[in-house]
């Protein structure tokens, strides 16, 4: 186990291509990256493949991390880019998405918050498009600030806020949730 802040490890990796230090960074952040990609793809095997690709990209692009903002924010930006690139290429992702959308269409319209089904994350995320899903997950699952999400997605902060608002609105509408029913 190597001690030191993320930024110190990044400096060591960039200056001397220290793979042990990079291994420590992967150990620290793999859980968040894999969880993020699992929620985006809703396929564990695909998410883990993408996570590996994400860390490989991170290795080659590490010199572009300026130290401004959190390292996990930067890493999630790489993960999101990897996801978008793979989505453009992969037929498999399209199939999974189609299946999930079909399942949501069949069952998702009549959920109410009292039913157990609303806790089914897959169905809830299926009502959101990729962009909304990524931003909602970054905000509520990864705890990134609007500024960090803005950096990660290359969107203005105002747009991030409106995407979150729109996503929440969709969830509310699709699951027939009233304001007083939260919590």
């Amino acid at each position, binding site marked *: 186990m190597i001690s030191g802040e993320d930024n110190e490890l990044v400096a060591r990796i960039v200056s001397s*291509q220290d*793979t*042990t230090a*990079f*291994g420590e960074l*992967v*150990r620290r952040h*793999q*859980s968040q990256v*894999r*969880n993020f990609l*699992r*929620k985006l793809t809703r396929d564990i095997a695909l998410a*883990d493949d993408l*996570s*590996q690709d994400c*860390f*490989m990209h991170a*290795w080659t692009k590490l010199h572009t991390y300026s130290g401004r903002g959190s390292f996990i924010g930067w890493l999630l930006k790489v993960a999101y880019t990897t996801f978008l690139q793979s989505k453009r290429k992969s037929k498999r992702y399209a199939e999974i998405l189609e299946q999930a959308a079909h399942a949501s269409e069949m069952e998702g319209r009549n959920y109410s918050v009292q039913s157990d089904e609303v*806790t089914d*994350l897959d169905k*809830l995320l299926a009502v959101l498009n990729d962009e909304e899903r990524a931003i*909602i*997950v970054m905000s*509520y*699952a990864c705890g990134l*600030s*609007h*500024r960090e999400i803005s950096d990660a997605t290359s969107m203005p902060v105002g747009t991030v806020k409106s995407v979150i608002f729109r996503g*929440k609105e969709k*969830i509310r509408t699709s699951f027939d949730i009233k*304001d007083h029913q*939260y*919590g």
Partner: protein
Amino acid sequence: MTSKIINMAERIKDAEDRFLESLLDSAPVADDGFSARVVGKIRRRLWLQRLALPVAVLIGGGVAIKPLVGLVTAVAGLSSLLPKELLGVTTEVIPQMPTIVLGAMLLVACLLGLRTLED
């Protein structure tokens, strides 16, 4: 000051935010050799990068050796056609010319060797 206010505003969560957080909350994923696999892949890639240059030089040298030998023979043949006075001019002007050329070639070879060792 303004950014602090924005951050505070972001942190004020309503019931809807807490509901989404609990819904999206998930247990940490165990490493299970994931980081070792990633680091192993990167080390393999680094080795490949280090090997690429010497291998390329070897292959290039192998391919180029025959035409190079032909070229050297042709140049040697040409020099025999030149008058002897002209050949002697360079050594007369700079008597250490052969030593300088040999030294320069050795220097280039040493620099290339050092660079490979550093990599």
